[in-house]
């Protein structure tokens, strides 16, 4: 049975069990969040989504508060705005700030910075010299952690527990020393971490970052939506392109594609092969000396076609074989079998994964 919830005076239908945030976002109310990720259990940790609910003495976190029938919610009031202003002021007092006095921009967009920019004038609070520590000797090649940018919302930790389910990282230490650590503060490569990088993707502030990608570029990256080229799951990826190079791979947001915002170590990080110096860059033909030598495209194609034709003339089309590839596109597989069947008259055509 649907229930009715009033968001800023507008009635909205909701399913029992939905949170106030679910309903508010669906009707277009602008409720900011930092610690929220639709893949994770609500944590109510960052306090940026607090709203007024009639009958509740204190502001309540929309992400964790269940909607009930007849509930009256105000997402934008003087009280809510004042709360956000104080909250942002507290956050920024505990952050490394750039020359504009804001949390630094990142390649993926710093959500804390964006929220600070729209929260009105901030209070002038003395900076907190937070003694949060990073892991001192973590030489894993992919996942970096910058404690000065961390707001301890624990999205990374909860992702590691709830989605990747390897529990490699954890909130460690106490009080002002609280940080994102590992058991014994060892490097990630000595933990259960599988280097999926989900912690980087879910981090709202760029405290978790990809070591081998730029942290910020002068020009925004161009994101090209494509399909991962490793296993058969078909994860959708955004190839982040800058200066004609793929500089990073990210997932589309959760809820939109088959991978629900997730990627694995290969899909997210193993893109160095694209621009690798070992790539083949010119056609090669074997010379009389038995070695492969560079040549032109017309020459290589002519030799390839003639070589295959020669075998066909001498031994018949049954003596030809065409090995296609499950790594290549559907169109290319179509063309290989068409080449084998229509151009060379043989059904000896298969591909590497005969499964």
């Amino acid at each position, binding site marked *: 049975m649907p229930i009715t919830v009033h968001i800023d005076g507008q009635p909205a239908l909701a399913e029992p069990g939905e949170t106030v945030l679910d309903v508010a976002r669906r009707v277009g109310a602008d409720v900011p969040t930092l610690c929220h990720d639709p893949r994770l259990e609500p944590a109510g940790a960052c306090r940026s989504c607090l709203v007024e609910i009639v009958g509740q003495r204190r502001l309540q976190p929309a992400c964790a508060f269940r909607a009930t029938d007849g509930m009256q919610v105000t997402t934008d009031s003087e009280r809510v705005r004042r709360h956000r202003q104080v909250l942002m002021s507290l956050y920024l007092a505990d952050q490394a700030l750039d020359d504009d006095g804001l949390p630094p921009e990142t390649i993926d967009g710093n959500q804390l910075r964006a929220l600070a920019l729209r929260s009105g004038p901030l209070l002038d609070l003395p900076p907190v010299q937070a003694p949060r520590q990073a892991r001192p000797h973590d030489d894993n090649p992919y996942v970096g952690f910058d404690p000065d940018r961390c707001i301890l919302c624990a999205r990374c930790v909860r992702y590691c527990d709830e989605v990747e389910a390897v529990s490699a990282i954890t909130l460690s230490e106490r009080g002002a020393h609280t940080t994102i650590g590992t058991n014994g503060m060892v490097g990630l490569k000595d933990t259960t971490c599988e280097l999926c990088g989900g912690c980087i993707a879910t981090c709202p502030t760029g405290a978790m970052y990809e070591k081998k990608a730029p942290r910020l570029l002068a020009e925004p990256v161009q994101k090209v939506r494509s399909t991962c080229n490793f296993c058969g799951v078909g994860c959708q990826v955004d190839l982040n392109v800058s200066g004609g190079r793929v500089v990073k791979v990210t997932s589309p947001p959760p809820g939109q594609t088959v991978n629900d915002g997730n990627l*694995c170590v290969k899909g997210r990080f193993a893109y160095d092969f694209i621009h690798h110096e070992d790539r083949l860059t010119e056609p090669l033909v074997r010379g009389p000396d038995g070695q492969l030598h560079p040549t032109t495209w017309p020459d290589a194609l002519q030799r390839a076609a003639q070589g295959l034709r020669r075998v066909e003339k001498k031994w018949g089309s049954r003596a030809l074989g065409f090995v296609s590839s499950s790594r290549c596109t559907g169109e290319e597989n179509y063309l290989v079998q068409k080449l084998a069947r229509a*151009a060379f008259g043989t059904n000896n055509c298969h591909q590497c994964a005969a499964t």
Partner: protein
Amino acid sequence: MFGAGAMTNSIPEIRDADLLFVIGSNTTEAHPIIAMEMKRAVQRGARLIVADPRKIWLSEVADLHLQLRPGTDVWLLNAIAHVILAEGLEDRAFIAAHTERFEDVRAAVADYTPEGAEAVTGVPAEHIRQAARLYATTKKAGIYYTLGITEHTHGTDNVYCLANLVLMTGHLGVRSAGMNPLRGQNNVQGANDAGASPIYYPGYQKVSDPASRAKFEAAWGVPLSPDEGMNLNVMMKAMERGEIKGLFVMGEDIVLSEPNVSLVEEGLNQVEFLVVQDIFLNETCRFADVVLPAACFAEKDGVFTNTDRRVQRVRKAVEPPGQARADWEILCDLARAAGYPMPHYESPAEIYAELSSLVPNYGGISHARIDAEGGLQWPCPSPDHPGTATLHQGGPIKGRASFQAVAYRPSDELPDEDYPLVLSTGRTLYHYNAATQTRRDSGPTMKQPESFVEVHPSDARRLSLEDGEWVRVSSRRGEVGARVVVTRKMRPGCIWMPLHFAEERVNRLTNDAGDSVTGTGEYKVCAARIHKDALRAAK
């Protein structure tokens, strides 16, 4: 089996399943993102049954781990069927309405008692009973399998056994249930769909069927051969016998990835002409007469079809290096150079349009539609069809699905005095197949820099092997080096090696005996032994 060679259900349905039966799939390593969906289901309370010779990650969180001896799947699965029938847990209404030859299977599994299975498979009879009851009595119960099922000489038999379980319990055409082969590569499904097959034109239309042949002859304007071709396994052997004289290889390093590679290399030495088209100078190029440099996935347009029949776009993001060109462009030029009038396609969208015009099930799929709507799952016969998430709703596509009675056959090569260990091979999380891509990245290389062999502590003790010691592993076909990893993950008597390392090619060891139907090599079972590396020890 039921009318379509693909996952019957969809990846997003996994999280809502109430029971997952994962067999022959180390999902967290080979399909990590599907494994996340499985983890989510388990966190929600779904029961999990894992059948695998190794204590894989998923087995640690499973309700039941059936740790069978490699290659005894038919015994295990027939015993599960035996229990279902003996206890009357089958879905009689579904069997009567949608299947045929049920009695064949009832008769065939009569002798496969759980106690008999325990003796052969090593799985306790009581666990087999529990698994059968859980599977049969849960409505949303899905089977997930991959190469641990198919890479056997009895791979097709294994698949039949699984299908029998699905049919006798009616777990078909239901959300979050069904029978789900997890495809290992980005576009295995799409390559098969597009007709890269010795017996099928695009869309599984048989080359032996005159009507299909006439259709493709009309479309392509030339007469076509009525003879079925050779599958890859047969092709490799024919090459060695001198029956294949010319070979074109695109995007595969056959010298690394085919079983019993020493034989493949001998064959390649004999072929008169070899063309290799790839993005790297791979091992197979050593034998090539012509090497054509190709673009990688980030440098071209097209589609990949994933394991749940979802046709999705690949988009060009950057330019290929140097003179490298997209495979589709090269193929068109090669066909024309050989005198075949391949059309001058403007783009892969036009090629896809030609493909979909010839296959009714893909008729509603186009680049334009995918660009506008996202991935589309076949069958999708018309432009207004939304695609199909769950197959066989309202009964099997092909009408009545047939049970297949299967008898257990041992693997082709069993351990003996000379080669006392059972070797299985597979993929790890950090690398991908021939690893030409992943070994060019620092993370995988840091996690797994070199080849290794997993050994049970009892075997390690018996053979006086230390964890971390470099050893030689050999079979009747060859020998390679590997670093010993002593782990209780293994069954005693069984060892496991990754397939990724070019300098220690494990496919020197594997058995090229192929499945009688598909030709898939027996990568999962061969007899092997381990001995100390005297040379290295001396250094």
